[in-house]
């Protein structure tokens, strides 16, 4: 099935609006959405079972969320994590790089809150 991913970002400063946007048509096998509450330990949102094309995450809480992606190449483990501030949206693409040159398809996607608990809305396109 085809899934459409639409993106837009805009900001108005001094009566001038700057924007950027895109639309992608993805040949998807499934699209799922949901909500997960995470605490201060990394908790799994999605696994490598059925590789993902894009995972969109929305931090609905009042504190930062860290998204950890596990990159594995043969026997070497590498991790990359990215911030989602309160009310922020993040897209985890299908392929990421670590600073040690370790690359690979994303194995697992995990999230944790900076403190307390946070609800994360997610949409996974496989």
């Amino acid at each position: 099935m085809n899934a459409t991913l639409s993106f837009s970002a805009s900001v108005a400063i001094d009566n001038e609006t700057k924007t950027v946007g895109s639309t992608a048509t993805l040949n998807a096998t499934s699209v799922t959405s949901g909500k997960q509450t995470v605490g201060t330990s990394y908790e799994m949102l999605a696994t490598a079972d059925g590789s993902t094309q894009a995972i969109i995450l929305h931090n609905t809480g009042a504190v930062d969320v860290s998204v950890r992606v596990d990159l594995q190449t043969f026997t070497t483990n590498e991790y990359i994590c990215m911030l989602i501030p309160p009310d922020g949206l993040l897209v985890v693409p299908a392929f990421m790089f670590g600073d040690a040159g370790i690359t690979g398809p994303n194995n697992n996607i995990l999230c944790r809150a900076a403190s307390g608990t946070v609800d994360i809305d997610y949409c996974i396109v496989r």
Partner: protein
Amino acid sequence: MTITIAVSTKGFTWSRTASIADVTAAVTHISEQTSADAVFGGVEAAAVGDGLHSFNAIAVGCLVNSGSGSILKVLTSVSGGTQTGGVAIPPGIPFIVYNGAGTGFTGGVSTGASNTITPTDDVQRLQFGSIMGSSVAQVLLGLKATS
């Protein structure tokens, strides 16, 4: 800055809108990659000759691959150009990066061999190149006085 992402397919729609407060300046940029790892969004003008702003970091950076069919490689880097990570995005897929805003973690990105890492590096610039063929990237950078 307002960011909206929607996913739709037959019988299904998911849409969320985010708001990043207190953005006081912004930069838009369109760049064609014609050599390896062109750099934009940087603050280290003397080092890389690409200074588009003078803030210490990018509060929120949005980048899309607007090329025709190529895979875009995007690297994030901190002061001095040290790479902190990166992504490969096909056409139409956005890449969004933030920096710490005082609501928990101290930075926007980290990489390493520890599975307990949290974001500690403030992204100062975005660097991009193509994995295959030439590519075009469009970017919108949101900047704050504290970023």
